[in-house]
């Protein structure tokens, strides 16, 4: 597939023609709060796509096998399993409600027939096992087919139960519950490359867990000041390195990213590397710090780069160079002159995520008005696309969108003041091997595929 390393020059995001594939979710204008999608994640093979929502539910989609008899159905995603991961809770000690919203889902690499994922809300992380059952045992001795116990005195002969096929049933069961380790709200979880441990990060602390052990976790980063009145910086995201199991990064609300090595000390309060771009003094304003706050950090698949998302841009960093990013991509620079309004309506605090393509040749992130942006790192071109029901004819190509900043608006352009700031694309995911992307637009999940296939 394009992007997966075929041929001499890998096709970038813009050589591809992105087409609508599917959309999941209600069509109503009236969006139920609980249906708002809060996280999207492909598993390691890309065959499964999980979403979490504000109502604490997880929905997993599975890609259909490509079918010769239906050549146009190029691997559609259909519902595989749905379960309630987290319930609303009440913290009696603090008189506070704990939201059931799923903040993050992370898959574990598959080790046997079952699938495992971690899902977390603000306080509790759960390990879920998703397994298939397609056989049923029949012919029990001690109970009837409908489950009623048979009278032992009536049994005159013994038989061996036999397995019969049944309709596929997918069961999700919670295997571990990792609770009571976070005072503040969990914003990230990340599975380590050793496949045995994972980290969870809240506003001030990062904890390291072993997947088998739920009653103990190790605190590896603590940014809480002795005096809370001195608090000026919080942790916004954290992730393990994809290959080096002792390395992880965490980003902050001051626009800095720290890379830590767990071999250097038990408590990684001091960093091994410190990534910060010096501020441009000419563009300083009262909003400079807020817009520099990093909302997401992601390592490239290669492990050589990492990407940080702040309010207006995406930056790619070479892990060997801390002084400045190697690439900076503007997501919606036209909003820079609107920061005061965006501060007033709180949009300036929106946390956008970002993701790499499978080959790291392209990156993607969301914006407002249901727009999302893709940047091709090789060709240096970028494109703005829209997730909307209007472009939802099967295999319809997505037309690039453009926001006009000046007074003269061309026909297909949209002016900055007409943008709908309630339609924000915060969560996007890219298939690990191919060119399929999942984009969450409030309560709808859009799946786009490329036409090259």
């Amino acid at each position, binding site marked *: 597939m394009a992007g997966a390393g075929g041929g001499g020059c890998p096709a970038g995001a813009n050589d591809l023609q992105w087409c609508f594939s599917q959309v999941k979710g209600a069509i109503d204008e009236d969006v139920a709060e609980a249906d708002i999608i809060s996280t999207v994640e492909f598993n390691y093979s890309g065959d499964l796509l999980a979403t979490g929502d504000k109502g604490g539910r997880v929905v997993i989609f599975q890609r259909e096998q490509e079918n010769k008899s239906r050549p146009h159905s190029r691997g559609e995603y259909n519902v595989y399993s749905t379960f309630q991961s987290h319930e609303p809770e009440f913290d009696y*000690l*603090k*008189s*506070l*409600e704990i939201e059931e919203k799923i903040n993050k889902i992370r898959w574990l690499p598959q080790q046997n027939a079952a699938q495992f994922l971690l899902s977390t809300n603000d306080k509790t992380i759960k390990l879920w096992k998703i397994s298939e059952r397609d056989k049923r045992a029949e012919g029990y001795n001690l109970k009837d087919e409908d489950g009623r116990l048979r009278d032992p005195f009536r049994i005159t002969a013994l038989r061996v139960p036999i397995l019969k096929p049944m309709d596929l049933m997918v069961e999700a069961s919670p295997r571990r519950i990792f609770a009571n380790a976070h*005072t*503040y*709200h969990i914003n990230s979880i990340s599975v380590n490359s050793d496949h045995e441990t994972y980290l969870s990060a809240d*506003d*001030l602390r990062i904890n390291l867990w072993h997947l088998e052990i739920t009653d103990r976790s190790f605190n590896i980063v603590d940014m809480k000041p002795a005096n*809370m*009145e001195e*608090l*000026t*910086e*919080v942790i*916004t995201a954290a992730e393990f390195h994809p290959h080096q199991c002792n390395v992880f990064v965490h980003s902050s*609300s001051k626009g800095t990213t720290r890379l830590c090595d767990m071999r250097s000390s038990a408590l990684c309060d001091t960093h091994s590397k410190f990534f910060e771009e010096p501020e441009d003094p000419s563009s*300083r*304003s*009262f*909003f400079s*710090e*807020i817009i520099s*706050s990093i909302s997401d950090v992601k390592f490239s698949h290669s492990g050589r780069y990492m990407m940080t998302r702040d309010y207006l841009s995406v930056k790619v960093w070479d892990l060997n160079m801390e002084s400045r990013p190697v690439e900076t991509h503007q997501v919606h620079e036209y909003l820079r*002159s*609107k*920061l*005061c*309004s965006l*501060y*007033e309506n*709180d949009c300036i*605090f929106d946390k956008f995520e970002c993701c790499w393509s499978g080959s790291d040749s392209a990156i993607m992130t969301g914006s407002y008005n249901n727009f999302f942006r893709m940047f091709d790192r090789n060709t240096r071109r970028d494109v703005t696309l829209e997730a909307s029901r209007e472009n939802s004819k099967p295999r319809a190509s997505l037309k690039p969108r453009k926001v006009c900043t000046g007074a003269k608006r061309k026909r297909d352009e949209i002016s900055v003041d007409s943008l709908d700031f309630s339609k924000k694309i915060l969560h996007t995911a890219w298939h690990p091997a191919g060119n399929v992307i999942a984009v969450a637009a409030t309560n709808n999940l859009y799946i786009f595929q490329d036409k090259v296939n």
Partner: protein
Amino acid sequence: MFARGLKRKCADGDEDMEGALASLQRQSLLDMSLVKLQLCHMLVEPNLCRSVLIANTVRQIQEEMTQDGTWRVMAPQTAGQAPRDRLVSTEILCRAAWEQDGELPAPGSADGDAPDLVSHLCGAPSAPAPRSTQGCVWDVDGPGEDRGSLQKSLDQIFETLESKTPSSVEGLFGDMDSPYYDLDAVLTGMVGSKSARRPLPSSLFRGQGGFLQAGRPPGPA
């Protein structure tokens, strides 16, 4: 709608006008931030990242106003203490160090009124009651932490809003009225008197007139 908090060159070069405009924009931003922080106090569990970012913004404005001299003008009688010691976050959000030290340059009326305001706030059925178990807005470690600091921080907000010096307010606002108070009305859902001098509790969350003083306000003029 304002662009940035920076002063901008005015074509006609009227320095006073341009300075006043920038000041007003900055003041409005400060007011907006304070209202947001006050609302944070009322939320079930405030978003810590958001609170920290807003508090840092307020501190930045305060620093700039201190440098400009605008802040120092409103400084309390405790002139011996450097204004920087009284950066906003300490006072608004958590129990202030100077309160602990007992150096209250207390105008009797301000102190006397504050508990009434707070009790009124607690008693008012329509106002969301401050969660006394929450303590300091950032202090969510549990019952071991001080539970009273939320009320105390509210005390401080109400006191300063109530007993600002009329003359200083006039200095900034003069005859300016509607647009800035409409902001408050929109944010608080209340449409009412636009008087900058009218004390609480009728306008519990007003940020009008702003948080002009660095510390305890001087006695009413």
